[in-house]
């Protein structure tokens, strides 16, 4: 049904574009909330391509897997926001360049 209207490549282009937007967001933004949102964008970009392939191949596992990704994303959000809050409690900022604790 879909293949008549929109070809697979368009979905993939959309997915890739969203993914690159996410990457760029992660790399250039300093605000940890925005970085976090960019990560969500990347996850959803992947979801789009999963569902597109699923439809194209006439399978259902892609859809199931995209639910899986959403669950993980939800869990990640809860943990990530908690981390961000505790970061903010330690330092009165959410600017990522103020945090360089991830080293030995």
């Amino acid at each position: 049904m879909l293949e008549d209207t929109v070809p697979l490549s368009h979905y993939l282009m959309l997915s890739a574009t969203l993914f690159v937007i996410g990457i760029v967001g992660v790399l250039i933004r300093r605000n940890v909330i925005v970085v976090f949102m960019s990560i969500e964008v990347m996850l959803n970009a992947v979801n789009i391509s999963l569902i597109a392939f699923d439809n194209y191949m006439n399978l259902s596992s892609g859809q199931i897997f995209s639910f899986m990704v959403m669950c993980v994303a939800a869990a990640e959000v809860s943990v990530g926001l908690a981390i961000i809050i505790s970061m903010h409690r330690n330092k009165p900022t959410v600017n990522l360049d103020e945090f360089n604790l991830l080293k030995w």
Partner: protein
Amino acid sequence: MLLKLTCLVPLFPLIGSIINGFFGLKIGKNAVGLIACGSMALSFLTSILIYIGYLMLPEGQHIFEQVVWTWFGAGDFSVDFGFQIDPLTLVMMFVVTGVGFIIHVYSIGYMHEEYSYYRFFAYFNLFASAMLLLVMGNNFLLMFIGWEGVGCCSYFLIGYYFEKKSACDAGTKAFVVNRVGDFAFLLAVMYIFNVFGTIDFSDVMHAAPDKLIYGGEIVTIITMLLFVGATGKSAQIPLYTWLPDAMEGPTPVSALIHAATMVTAGVYMVVRCSALFNLSPMTMMVVAGIGGLTAIMAATIGMAQYDIKRVLAYSTVSQIGYMFLACGVGAYTAAIFHLVTHAFFKACLFLGSGSVIHGINGEQDMRNMGGLKSQMPVTYWTFLVSTLAIAGIFPLSGFFSKDEILYHSLMDGNIIFWGMGVSAAMLTAFYMFRLVFMTFHGESRVDPSVHPHESPKVMTMPLVALAGLATVGGLLGIPLFHGWHILHNWLEPVLHFDLAHALHQSEHMLHEAGRHAPSWAHLLTPKEHNLWIEVMLMVFSLGIAITGIFGAYMFYIKRPDLPDKVTKGQWGYDLVQNKYYIDELYDESIVQPTVEGSKLLWKECDAKAIDGAVNGTAKTIGWFSRQAQVFQSGFVRNYALFIVVGFISLLLVMF
């Protein structure tokens, strides 16, 4: 079977040593002394039982071997932890356990004031055990265990007063110098294994004439290495310097280890390997030469020493030189005979000197003695008897053994060896009586605050016993005037050597190798025993001894001013008094270069090269780490960038 008791003989002292070593402080001095002496006494009694058992062996069997267990095996080579009983072993066992027991008893009195009394007896018993292992082992490796064991105990006991630096140094010196000889001995054992494929004494000695060519290089190398081992343990030139220093130990140690038993281990070993030594005339010549030279050299040094124990130490070196002289001319019986009598009279002399030192509160310098005859009658008389014995006065034991060595060195050796022996005999008589006169006769030069006193009974009784043995010990070897005597007949099964057979085998082997055998016919002419020469030599050596004694009498009793006049400014006297500067020579030529070389290795090789390599590796890795450090900035976004860059480069590589 009484011979089954064999393994108990070294075991008793070992058990005594373990008990005293671990529980000595708890069980008290009396118990320690009782255990130490008791274990030696048990050893001695067991030796007697073994002797009886040996006599009951069937006709024609001269050796009994008891294998306790197989120590290790590799391929068709195996070493047993086994003992052998033969006439030579029995003689040595009696000397070690008998004289050892007497000296143990003496030590109870001598060491009584010591705090670490138990430590002394633990080492002393351990020594006895190791020495018994040495003389009873049935193969070279077991002998080597004993050989190292006695060396180790010697080190412990020389350094007994470990808070004194000189004692520690003396112990180290003895140990290190002995290592030189031990290494040669070990090499010899390896070579023997290489040639014979076994290291059992009886197998090696039995196979020797069939495997080794008379006068060949192999047998010469083996025997030379064995002899170097013997020079280390028995304090012969060039490795004798440790023995005089070893006098830092307590006097009973000097008596048992550094006079009666351990230092004679080299002689025992040479006699035990007589079948090998007989095959190498060159080594025999060297053995006799070194022995004779040592006898004279040590005797001359002994003439100019003032420390009573050092005089006796040089005397020991000199007397062991005699024994090697005897070995070198093939008179093994005479060597063992002298070993036995020497054990008696030298142990008595050392214990006597210990009694003197004990009686005047630790003074050892003979210039601070004199006139002790009346205060210490028992010590004096026993000392005098032993001195007469060592000087070779008829009919004491030393006379017979020394005379036998001199006779054989003339008849089987040559006039040079005999000359060495005779001059050493005269020097011996001189320095021994110098010692007696300076210590017991003349004016008392003892510190007036010290009151000389006779030692307690527990010390004087051993002296009397040893003096008695020194008197009658000669009976073992009273010449029967047809050449040989009791001891010789007794040792005959061990020392039996068929020269004609050996030469025949050698000719055969040379012939098979396509080489020409030299003419050995002259070796086989039987030597006649000449009664008149023997009697004349006896009279002559008696005269020589009396001359030496008379000389000492003139110098130290009649004209006490004479020694100073004669010796003053004489370079020869300085040379002798400073022991020919041999210690200084060794120090300059061996010890210092070793120390300097070690320092060089330490500073240049170890500190710079080895440490440098190790530290350099660490530094290089550290440098790389610092370079890699920039990647680990700790900023999350950097890490994300690396992930992206890595992912992109992966894609580029893949497509």
